[in-house]
C-alpha cells in the first residue's frame, strides 16, 4: 500500500507488494521463456506476457468484487463448471478419446482448471453455512466429500492425475483448516500408507515400472525416466551461479524436454543457478505468506477459508511442480504457475490472486461485509 498525495486513492489502495511479487515471478518466467526459445520472444515469451498482463488486469479488477458477490456465485459457478466437466467427459466418450477442454469459438476452456478456485469457494461457502456446532459431525464431512470427490473422479477419468491430485489436496486443505476432526486426516494418511503396498500389488506392470522409475529415474534414462534425469542434469549442472543467461546447454540443445512448460524451473536454474532458484522459491514463498496473512486476518469464516484455500492452490502448484522437477515426486504434469508457458495456469493463479486481493481489500477497508463476525 502506498500512501501519497500524488497517487490517486484507488491506485494507492492496491496491494502493490503482491502485485510487485507477482510481476517479478512472471518476469523471471518471461526471461526463461525468452531463453528457452533460443533467445526469442517468439513463440512463447510475448504471448505469455500478453496473457499475464490481461489476467493481471482481471485480477486487479476482481479486487473490487464484494465478498457477498463472491459468496453468491460460489454455488452457481461450481454447478456450471461441474456441468462443463461432465460435458467434456461425454465429448471424450463420443469421440472415443481423452479430452480435457471445451471449444467455445476461438477459446479452449479447460473446466478442470476453473474447478480449482471453484472448489475452494464452494467448500468455504459450505462450511460457512454449516452451523458452528456440527463441524465434528458426520454431516460436516459427507457433503464436502461429495462436492470434492465427484469432480476429482471426473478429472481423474479424463485422465488427468495431476489436476485430480491437486484438487483433492486443495479441497483437503480447506477441510483441514475448516476444523474437521484430526483423525480424518490422520486416518486418510494411514489408509494411504497402508494401501500403497496393496495398490502396488494390484498395479499393472507398466504402472509398477513408473513407480520404479520415479524411485530411480536413472534406471531408464532414455525411456520414462528421461524427463527427470535430464531435468536433474540441468539443475545440477547449473551449480551455484548457473551457466549464464542464454547459456543453458540442456535446454538449448533440447536435451531437457518440456523446458518451457512443466520443466521451466530446470531451464531457469540451469542458467541462473542455485541463486536464481532460491530467489524464485522465495518470491513464491512471499506470495503464499501474503495469502496466508489475508486468511489469518479475515473477519468472516468464508473469507478465512476461501483465502486459505486459494493460497493452498498456489502453494500446491509450486510445491508439486518443483518436487516433480527435482525428482522428489513422480512426473504428473503440473506446471509452475506464472513461469511455465501456458494460459490456463496463469489464469487459474491470477483468478486466485484476484480473489485474494478482493478479500484483502475488504478487510482493509471494512466494506462489503454481509455479516460481521469478528472473533473475540
Amino acid at each position, binding site marked *: 500500500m502506498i500512501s501519497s498525495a500524488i497517487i490517486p486513492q484507488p491506485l494507492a489502495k492496491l496491494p502493490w507488494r503482491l502485485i510487485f511479487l507477482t510481476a517479478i515471478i512472471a518476469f523471471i518466467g518471461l526471461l526463461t521463456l525468452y531463453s528457452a526459445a533460443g533467445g526469442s520472444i517468439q513463440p512463447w515469451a510475448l504471448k505469455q506476457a500478453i496473457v499475464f498482463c490481461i489476467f493481471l488486469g482481471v485480477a486487479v479488477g476482481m479486487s473490487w468484487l464484494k465478498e457477498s458477490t463472491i459468496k453468491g456465485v460460489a454455488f452457481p459457478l461450481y454447478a456450471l463448471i461441474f456441468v462443463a466437466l461432465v460435458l467434456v467427459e461425454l465429448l471424450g466418450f463420443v469421440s472415443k478419446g481423452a479430452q480435457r477442454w471445451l471449444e467455445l469459438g476461438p477459446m479452449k476452456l479447460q473446466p478442470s482448471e476453473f474447478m480449482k478456485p471453484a472448489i475452494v469457494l464452494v467448500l468455504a461457502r459450505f462450511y460457512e453455512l454449516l452451523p458452528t456446532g456440527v463441524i465434528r459431525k458426520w454431516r460436516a464431512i459427507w457433503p464436502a466429500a461429495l462436492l470434492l470427490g465427484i469432480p476429482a473422479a471426473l478429472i481423474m477419468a479424463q485422465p488427468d492425475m495431476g489436476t485430480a491430485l491437486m484438487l483433492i489436496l486443495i479441497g483437503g486443505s480447506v477441510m483441514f483448516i*475448516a476444523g474437521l476432526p484430526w483423525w480424518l486426516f490422520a486416518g486418510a494418511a494411514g489408509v494411504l500408507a497402508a494401501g500403497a503396498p496393496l495398490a502396488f500389488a494390484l498395479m499393472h506392470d507398466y504402472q509398477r515400472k513408473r513407480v520404479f522409475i520415479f524411485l530411480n529415474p536413472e534406471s531408464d534414462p532414455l525411456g520414462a525416466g528421461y524427463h527427470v534425469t535430464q531435468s536433474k542434469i540441468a539443475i*545440477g549442472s547449473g551449480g551455484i551461479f548457473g551457466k549464464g543467461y542464454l547459456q543453458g546447454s540442456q535446454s538449448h*540443445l533440447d*536435451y531437457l524436454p518440456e523446458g518451457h512448460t512443466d520443466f521451466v524451473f530446470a531451464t531457469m*536454474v540451469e542458467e541462473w543457478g542455485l541463486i536464481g532458484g532460491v530467489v524464485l522459491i522465495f518470491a513464491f*514463498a512471499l506470495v503464499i505468506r501474503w495469502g496466508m496473512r489475508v486468511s489469518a486476518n479475515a473477519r468472516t469464516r468464508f473469507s478465512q477459508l476461501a483465502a486459505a484455500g486459494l493460497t493452498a492452490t498456489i502453494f500446491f502448484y509450486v510445491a508439486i511442480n518443483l518436487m516433480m522437477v527435482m525428482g522428489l515426486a513422480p512426473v504428473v504434469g503440473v506446471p509452475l504457475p506464472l513461469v511455465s508457458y501456458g494460459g490456463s495456469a496463469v489464469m487459474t493463479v491470477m483468478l486466485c490472486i484476484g480473489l485474494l486481493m478482493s478479500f484483502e481489500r475488504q478487510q482493509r477497508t471494512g466494506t462489503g461485509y454481509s455479516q460481521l463476525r469478528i472473533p473475540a
Partner: protein
Amino acid sequence: MKHQPITPVQQSLTFSRRMMVFGGLEASIGALLVGRLGWLSIAENEHYSLLSESNRVQLIVVPPRRGWLVDRHGVPIAINRSDFRVDLVPQQLEQPEQTLKSLAALLSLDTDEMDRILRDLKQSRGFQPVQVAEDVPYDRYAALMVRLPELPGVRPMRGFSRYYPQGPAVAHLVGYVGTPSAEEYDKTKDPLFLTPGFKIGKQGLEKTLEPYLRGTPGGQRIEVTARGKLVKELDPKPDRSGQTVQLTIDAGLQEYAARRMGPESAALVAMEIATGDMLAYVSMPAYDPNSFSQGIGRTEWKMLSEDNHIPLLNKVAQGLYPSGSTIKPAMALGFLKQGLDPDQKFHCTGGVQIGNRYFRDDDAHGIVDMHSAIEHSCNAYFWAMGLKTDPQQTTEMVNYLGYGEEFDLPIPSQRFGTMPNPKWLEEKYHREWQGYDTANTSIGQGYVLINPMQLAVMPSRIASGNLVQPRLLLGGPRKPIKPLAINPEHLDYVRKAMAAVVNGHGTAVASKLPLDGIQMAGKTGTAQVHRLETRGHQSTWALRDHALFIAFAPADKPRYAIGCIVEHGGFGASAAAPIVRDTMTYLFDKQKALAALAPLEAQWGGSLAERNARELQQFKAAARANIA
C-alpha cells in the same frame, strides 16, 4: 466424536491452530525444496556437470593412424596412405537399390565389389556404416560430391588405408588388416570398431602387434542437439597414432627372396647368426595384403583358394615338412657326442638291410667317413651309424639344435612339427622304437616334421656354436645367447663337412657363391612326399619330393644362415640350393644378386608384380567367360 458443543470462539481457535499447522507444513516443504535444490546444484554439481557435458559434446570418432612397420634399416613395410573413401549408412538409406546403382556408375564398381557391399549391408547393424569404396580417385570422388544431395545415406570422407609397398613378398610376415567383425565388436564394445575405415590386424604381425600399432582415436568434437543436429564444431580432439614397430627383417632381402622363388611354392628364412634377427621370412606364392586390407573381391579370393601352391598358407610358420637330409649335420653331432669316431670308414654299397627290409640309397658311395657321408649325403652311412648309437641321445641332439622346437615369436600361430624319439613314440603310439625308425629319422623321414624357421635356426646354431633364438622385433628385449653344450671340435668338423657340400665335391657344388673369398656351407635335403620307390623327378607336381637346403656363410666366419624349402621342387640341390645361393649373395653383393635374377625373371615372364597382375586378369577373364 465429542459431544461437547463447539462455540465460535473455539472454532476461531481451531482455525488459528490449523493455519499454524498448515503454514508450518508449507514452510517445511519450502525448506525441503530449497534443500533439494542446494543438494543438486552444490553437492551433485560435479556429477551433473559431467553428464551435461557428455550430453552436449559428441565425438565423431576418427580412427587413429595405424603405426608403421619398418624394416631394420627403416624401410617401410606397412604404412598408411591418405585416400578418399565412401561409406554407406544403412539406416539413412532411402532407396537402397537406386543409390547402389548410382554409386556403381559414379565410382565404376565392378560386380565383385557390388556383391561385397550387398553382403556387408545384409550383415550390418543399421547404424554401422558400410564401406563402399576406399582409395577413390579424386575425379570420381568429386563427381560423387556433386550428386551427394540426391544420395541420402552416402557418406564421403577422407581416410587412410594400409599400404604394403612390398605387396605379396611380405604377406605372410605382416598379414593384413581388415574391418572388425561383429564378433570382434561384441568382445570389446569399443565404438571405434564401428567406425568405417577403422581396421584391425587380422593376420601376421598386424594381428600380434595390434596393441602397439592401433593408437588412440581422436575426432571432431561437436555440439549436438538431442535430436542429433549439429550446432557447432568444437576443438577437435587429436588422435594419437600407433607406434612404429621396427622389425629385424631386411625388406630388400625379403623382396629379393620372394622374387627369386619365381613360380615355385617355397619358404625361406634368413637369420643373422650373431643376434638371431630374422632377416627374411618369406612364404610364396602369397596373396597381396593390399587387396586383403581393402576387402578382397570374390574372384581374387577364389583364385587364391583354388591355387595348389596354397598362397593363403603361411608356410614359414605353418608349413610342416620332413627335413630330409638336412638333418644329417645334427645327426652327425649326435653321433660325435656319443663318441663315434668320425674317421671310421663305412662301405656304402647303395643300401642297408634293416630287419626284414632293405633300405636303398640313391647311389653306392663306396668307402665313406663322416665327412664324406655329409658331403655326399650318404644315407647308408647314417642308417648304419644310427643303428650303432642310442636313438634317444641322437634325436635329443637334433631337437637341441632346433628341429621340432617352438620359438618365442610374435606369430599368431606356429606349428613346430615333431622330432621323434623312442620315449615320444612310446607315449604317442605305444610301441617300441625299431631299427627302421632309426633309419627313417637318420635321414629326416618318418615322423620327422619341421618348419622352415627351424631350417634357419639349425645352421645358425651349428655355425655359431650358440643357442641362437630367432627374433622379429628389433626393439624387443634381447635375451642373452648361451653357447651350445657341444664340443667345439665336433662343431668344427661338421662345419667343414657342410662347407665341402658346396665347395668340395658335395651335393650342392653347383650352388657355390659367385663371390671372391666368401664361401657358403650347407646341406641339401630331399624330402620324400610319396613312396620311396618313386623318388626323384616326377612328372606330377604334387607327387614330387620337397627340396630343402640349409646354409650359412661365410663358411669360415659365419654371419648369416638361411633355410629354404621348395615344395615339390625335386632334389634339394637343384631347386632349393640355387635360391639360397642367390639370396645369400644378395646379403654380400646386391648388384650381383639382382643381375642373377634378371634373366630368370625374363624366363618366368616378368617380375613378381607383373606376373601376379597378369594371373589375376586371366582368372577374372576366365571367371567372366564361365558366367557368360
